[in-house]
């Protein structure tokens, strides 16, 4: 039983789903395995704020009964998943990582939770994060920092760090997070997993806390593109309750995954690797060689207007975040994390005319990127300019230069969420310390399938996404962590 439990945590979502559908494994066994892994590692990771052990086991029993009765709902039925504690869940503590909502229990589900429940997936718990999504480290939480599974002294990245850490160690093959600046892609990169942020409006944000209205997205974490695509299919779709929601046909990203990228054009802006660590650059060049070997055409680009992207993104999110949190700033300022309070309060001092100036800059950048996409199908870069920094380096340890015009990589990191473009991070190497490096792929609006296809092709030709944190070596059964195919 112990070996079986550990093995189930190593299964991909696709494999686990087949086993559950074929009744070779029960949902209850899958949930028990995930909970056992959580119990084993959570004390080191602090990836969860609320664990729903009893609820998950009860839901698993219902799933098993439904499947036995022939009422199979689809590939997520009975599969353990987690969600960032930004999403309302009826009757369940939903905190946003904040002291302000320590004991708040919503009366209704968010759209994301509604769709997860409809799919039959089992929610294991609510994952830890930077307070209300305002951070890039997952250390700015009332509930303590999330620790990176690859090195517990390092950050998991934020703000969706708990979700990324959970998936990285097999506490469920899937998790859902949010992104306003880089909060899906950065933690995916730092934790060595796949993270996907779809086009703005593809997944409903109804019932989740707002970071910045015009830049908030829901995203997916998994260990492979195939698994993420299944997770995306289950929750994408129009929702009239989210004014940004996109009218679209049924989401079928998983079935349409294709590894054929021959002839597609990749734009590379090497000028924006200023300040990037040598190991990050080396892994990136290796990834480009792989993509070229798969038939993609590499085109060198420069888009000078992108030197203003990071500051435009930061000013937008600072102003909108302040507006979103005005009531709490007035009534509960002292209950915010200090760094979050300072950033949000400073946003109150951005005037309306200044905000409009920032949006005009955003429009100019949008037009420059639209023109770039006339020459290429995808923009490719490292996800971050460094691997995961130490927790002791503090909230600025990421080293993003967001308030300076220049060719810092932060401009490419913050670009996709600012413009609502589909983007992902997939593992593409490790640094000399064994810390993961991420490859970022960005597509045009509504070219989500293209982004997924590129990542799928890359993963089909490499094994970086199959590597597991050394933390698991004492817990695993099977191939040693870090071994190549």
């Amino acid at each position, binding site marked *: 039983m112990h070996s079986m439990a550990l093995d189930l945590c190593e299964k991909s979502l696709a494999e686990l789903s087949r086993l559950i559908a074929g009744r070779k494994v029960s949902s209850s066994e899958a949930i028990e395995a995930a909970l056992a892994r959580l119990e084993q590692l959570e004390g080191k990771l602090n990836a969860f704020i609320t664990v729903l052990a009893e609820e998950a086991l009860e839901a698993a029993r219902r799933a098993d009964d439904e499947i036995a009765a022939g009422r199979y709902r689809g590939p997520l039925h009975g599969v353990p998943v987690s969600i960032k504690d930004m999403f309302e869940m009826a009757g369940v503590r939903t905190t946003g990582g904040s002291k302000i909502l320590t004991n708040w229990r919503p009366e209704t589900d968010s759209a994301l939770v509604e769709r997860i429940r409809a799919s039959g997936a089992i929610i294991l718990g609510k994952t830890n994060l930077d307070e209300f999504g305002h951070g890039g480290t997952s250390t700015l939480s009332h509930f303590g920092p999330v620790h990176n599974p690859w090195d517990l002294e390092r950050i998991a990245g934020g703000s969706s760090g708990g979700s990324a850490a959970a998936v990285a160690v097999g506490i469920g093959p899937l998790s859902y997070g949010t992104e306003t600046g880089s909060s899906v892609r950065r933690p995916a990169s730092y934790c060595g997993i796949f993270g996907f942020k779809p086009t703005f409006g593809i997944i409903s944000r109804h019932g989740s806390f707002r970071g910045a209205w015009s830049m908030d997205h829901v995203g997916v974490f998994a260990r492979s593109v195939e698994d993420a695509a299944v997770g995306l299919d289950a929750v994408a779709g129009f929702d009239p309750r989210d004014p940004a929601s996109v009218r679209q046909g049924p989401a079928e990203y998983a079935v349409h995954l294709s590894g054929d990228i021959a002839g597609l054009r990749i734009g590379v802006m090497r000028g924006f690797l200023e300040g990037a660590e040598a190991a990050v650059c080396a892994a990136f060049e290796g990834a480009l060689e792989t993509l070229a070997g798969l038939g993609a055409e590499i085109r060198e680009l420069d888009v000078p*207007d992108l030197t*203003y992207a990071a*500051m*435009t993104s930061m*000013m937008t999110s600072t102003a909108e975040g302040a507006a979103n949190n005005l009531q709490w*700033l*007035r009534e509960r*300022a*002292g209950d915010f994390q*200090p760094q979050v*309070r*300072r*950033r949000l*309060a*400073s946003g*109150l*001092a*951005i005037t309306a005319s*200044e905000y*409009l*100036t*920032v*949006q*005009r*800059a955003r*429009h*100019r950048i949008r037009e420059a990127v639209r023109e770039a996409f006339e020459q290429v199908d995808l923009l490719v870069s490292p996800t971050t300019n460094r691997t995961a920094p130490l927790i002791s380096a503090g909230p600025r340890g990421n080293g993003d230069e967001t*308030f300076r*015009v220049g060719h810092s990589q932060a401009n490419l990191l913050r670009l996709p969420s600012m413009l609502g473009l589909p983007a992902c991070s997939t593992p593409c190497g490790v640094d000399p310390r064994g810390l993961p490096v991420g490859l970022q792929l960005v597509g045009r609006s509504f070219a989500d399938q293209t982004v997924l296809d590129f990542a799928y092709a890359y993963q089909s030709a490499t094994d970086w996404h199959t590597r597991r944190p050394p933390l698991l070596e004492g817990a695993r059964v099977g191939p040693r962590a870090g071994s190549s195919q």
Partner: protein
Amino acid sequence: MSGMPSESYSRRLAFLEGIDLEPSDREAIVAEFEDFDRVLAELEAFSEGVPWLAQQAQPPGPDAQHGS
């Protein structure tokens, strides 16, 4: 960060009236204001000539229909 807040910072701090802040918060916030002033000057120059976006409804057909 040096000395007393400038007139710009004082103007910005006025927006925070009613927010319960620690002395250390104010110091950090004024440092943010330094960034804001510099960044906004850059963005004003960068966005010069870029029109403000407004939602414009478009007629359903290829051409607008004018009344007689």
